[in-house]
């Protein structure tokens, strides 16, 4: 093989990887571009001209910002509850021996392995048969979101917990810390990044969920439901403003975390 051929060979996988990343990002470029769009016709979804209006008046389309606020409220509440319940479960599953331990592992995995449409449909069947078919709304969405976020929280926190060095806790106990002190001074700070990651994951799952929510929302409209509704008629460019803003926020969070990590490493 020639030298050039070998270079291509050893870097081929990198080229393919960049191509795939480009594929992952192609729609993001469109979302950012369309957030500056000035639509001429309500029929065609295409880029017609540049404007800043959408960014200056994101709440202009009727109901858009209400739906974002509903999604934020559901997301924060469901994340808080799912993170607490899931963390407790993860502690029990990693740190304790009890009858039915492997069964509980399988039980946690099941909701993640069920198609969303089945999860949503079965919850709807429950609500309707319990006579709550007329009360679908914020609280039924909340119940559904906690349910499907829980497993993801348990799995994420469990991964962090089982990778932990138990000798640190033993050392604390040797130095006469009681169980309570050991937990808050040693265990919790070590698990915290895992809990934080679980909370972030669960918020993004909740904020983005459509299939389950759509079946159990009644008249309440979350942000994905608003997007869905507008996709049937015309798509206001402000939707892309919200999409871009969410993306930027996430990128800033990730960059911030990375910078903090590097700074800590330099100091250490």
């Amino acid at each position, binding site marked *: 093989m020639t030298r050039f051929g070998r270079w291509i060979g050893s870097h081929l996988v990198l080229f393919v990887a960049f191509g795939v990343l480009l594929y992952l990002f192609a729609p993001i470029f469109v979302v950012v571009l369309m957030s500056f769009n000035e639509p001429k016709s309500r029929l065609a979804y295409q880029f017609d001209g540049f404007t800043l209006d959408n960014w200056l008046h994101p709440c202009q389309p009727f109901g858009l910002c209400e739906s974002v606020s509903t999604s934020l409220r559901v997301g924060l509440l469901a994340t808080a509850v799912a993170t607490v319940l899931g963390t407790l*479960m993860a502690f029990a599953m990693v740190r304790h021996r009890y009858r039915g331990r492997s069964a509980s592992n399988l039980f946690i995995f099941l909701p993640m392995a*069920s*198609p969303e449409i089945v999860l949503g449909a079965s919850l709807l069947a429950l609500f309707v048969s319990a006579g709550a078919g007329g009360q679908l709304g914020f609280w039924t969405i909340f119940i559904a979101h906690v349910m499907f976020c829980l497993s993801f929280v348990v799995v994420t926190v469990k991964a962090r917990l089982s990778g932990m060095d138990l000798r640190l*806790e033993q050392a604390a106990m040797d130095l006469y810390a009681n169980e309570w002190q050991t937990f808050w001074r040693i265990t919790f700070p070590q698990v915290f990044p895992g809990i934080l990651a679980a909370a972030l994951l669960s918020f993004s799952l909740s904020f983005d969920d459509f299939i389950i929510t759509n079946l159990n929302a009644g008249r309440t409209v979350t942000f994905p439901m608003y*997007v869905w509704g507008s996709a049937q008629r015309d798509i206001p460019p402000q939707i892309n403003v919200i999409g871009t803003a969410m993306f930027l926020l996430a990128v800033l969070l990730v960059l911030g975390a990375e910078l903090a990590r590097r700074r800590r490493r330099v100091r250490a």
Partner: protein
Amino acid sequence: MSALSHLGGAPPAAGPPAAAEPERRTGRRRLTAYLLLLPGGLWLVLFFVVPLVTLLSASLYDPSGSVETGYTVTWHWQNYVDALRDYARPFGRSFVYALVATAICLLLGYPLAYAIAFKAGRWKNLMLALVIAPFFTSFLIRTLSWKLLLGDNGFVVDVLQALRILGPDGRLLATTAAVVTGLTYNFLPFMVLPLYASLERIDHRLIEAGGDLFAGPFTTFRTVTLPLSMPGVVAGTLLTFIPAAGDYINAQLLGTPKQRMIGNDIQSLFAAGVYPTAAALSVTLMAAIVVLVLFYVRRTGTEDLV
């Protein structure tokens, strides 16, 4: 018993009380475990298990009922026969589309995961972040963007027409290709992340040993790297296939009624209040997936997914 509770236990002392002490502590710790599991477990029982049972019973309702007049369970198994007869095609379509999308995800996702695990060096974290980043723009919005990208005047169609892959009147939007592209796109990260996790765990010395034993890069990959990454392949294909088979958003936004998947039908039947048929279809979908997953996991021999 964990090391923590050993250390937290009472100091060892002679005599019968000491023998009774660990026994009592074990009992208390077991109780603690159940208390920790209780709230979350209860939530899952009430809002995951009970609903599934309700769904099962809803699939056996007398189909002559309606939302207004109420339904009664009459063990009407005929619902399943009717549902399968009327919806065999969207069912078949869902499984074929999901299978094709999963295969493409594996072909695209493996090189990406491999590059992140072995070639990225100090850019590893950044590349991982890039894989997850698109998640944060709502996936409905991203699917709508594909509508624009694949549109008749869009960039992709122009290129494919210039290359004569697509005829001058050829189109992508509202075709099977568009729906599969969308499915592939939406679930690709679910393939990449478990693949990366299992590749990352591989001991590099094993791969070097392959080279030392005069295996070419391809042989080393086929006999060392690929088999060791099988848990990731299994987890990734499942995490891609299951949501793809139940999805209806891509078919709705990028396809036409000709590309309708089973999710579309379940959703619209529920919206129309035709519960027995919708429930029978949902139960069938769930059962089919469970059977496929068990069969697949047995065949590939990786039982510990979690």
